[in-house]
């Protein structure tokens, strides 16, 4: 009988060791759980060129009645009567699985591929559009923010980044720009508290005496590695 008990204890010790008990400690057992930090990301990419998941166009002050939604480039420009603004919108409903309205958006980043860098460091501002617009119908004249330059004011921007070749500028060279953080806007759209009409991007100081232009790839270029992207990182449990 004693022989059997010893054998059982030996088996039991094996089980206990398996869950982390210290050898020789039969009176107590401590388990430690692993630390998990989960995130989920939805990356929306403007591909293929005909996708409706993303729409983009440029409004040009110099051609106020023209629509440029079919161009392969997007431009932000500051100059005397030649200012240009980008309008773009990502359809968040293409995320699969859908981003729950209760999700907590930790970070949302707009990624644009810059192909022409201005010689001066320029600050570009993002403003959430206030009304619907069409990729093939938007013009300088009918844009949601109106035709007054430097409007809306800088103070109402919800994102910003800088581009230009001078040292110290945030984005010095061609490639995907960094700094286009739009977490607040996307969180609001996900929660349904505001409507997603996309963004307008303009130079922080329109009407520059010397024209300064930053050029980005539009979805119409159909080059996957340069397409505009919106990256939404969120959690469903705080």
């Amino acid at each position, binding site marked *: *009988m004693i022989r*059997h*008990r010893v*054998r*059982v*204890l030996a*088996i*039991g010790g094996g*089980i*206990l060791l398996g*869950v982390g008990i210290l050898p020789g400690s*039969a*009176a*107590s*057992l*401590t*388990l*430690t*759980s*692993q*630390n*998990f*930090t*989960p*995130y*989920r*990301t*939805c*990356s*929306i*990419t403007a*591909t293929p060129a005909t*996708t409706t*998941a*993303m729409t983009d166009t440029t409004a040009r002050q110099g051609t106020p009645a023209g629509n440029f939604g079919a161009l392969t480039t997007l431009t932000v420009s500051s100059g005397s009567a030649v200012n240009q603004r980008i309008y773009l919108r990502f359809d968040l409903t*293409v*995320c*699969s*699985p859908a981003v729950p309205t209760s999700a907590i958006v*930790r*970070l949302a*980043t707009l*990624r644009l591929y810059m192909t022409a860098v201005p010689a001066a460091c320029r600050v570009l501002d993002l403003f959430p559009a206030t009304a619907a617009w069409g990729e093939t119908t938007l013009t300088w004249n009918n844009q949601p923010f109106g035709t007054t330059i430097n409007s809306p004011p800088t103070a109402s921007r919800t994102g910003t980044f800088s581009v230009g070749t001078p040292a110290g500028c945030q984005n010095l060279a061609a490639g*995907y720009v960094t700094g286009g953080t739009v*977490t607040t806007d996307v969180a609001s759209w996900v929660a349904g508290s505001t409507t997603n009409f996309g963004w307008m991007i303009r130079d922080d100081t329109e009407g520059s005496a010397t024209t300064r232009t930053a050029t980005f790839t539009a979805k119409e270029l159909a080059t*996957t*590695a340069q*397409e505009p*992207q919106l*990256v939404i*990182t969120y*959690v469903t449990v*705080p």
Partner: protein
Amino acid sequence: MDSSMGTLRRIAAVILVTAAGAVVGSAASLSFASGSLGAATTAVPRCTTAGLTVFQNLTAGTVSSITVGAIPATCGGATLQVTVNNGVTNSGGSAAVPGGGGSVTVTIAVPPAVTASEQTDLVLVGP
């Protein structure tokens, strides 16, 4: 002999019940002593609640790797597991987070094609 086998079964049952309790109770810390069993639930804090940058690295129309940045030092030493799903292909990989945090690039084993949207799941395990 029958008596010894009965004792054997009883002891084995106690061990099994104890082990099962340890699994079912998803507690951060569980202790017991002979003659009594106490259980408590303790939340294990995540290493960060910050927003991480998650950028796809695209190669030939596929998501070849994922670069996760802005990882704080509190996650240093953790293992980053990444899965990318484009609705057709589901693949992933993992990499260790440097001790000081920072940025980690995870190569995707079977790069999925870039589509209008991809879902990327991240899990930092540990540290």
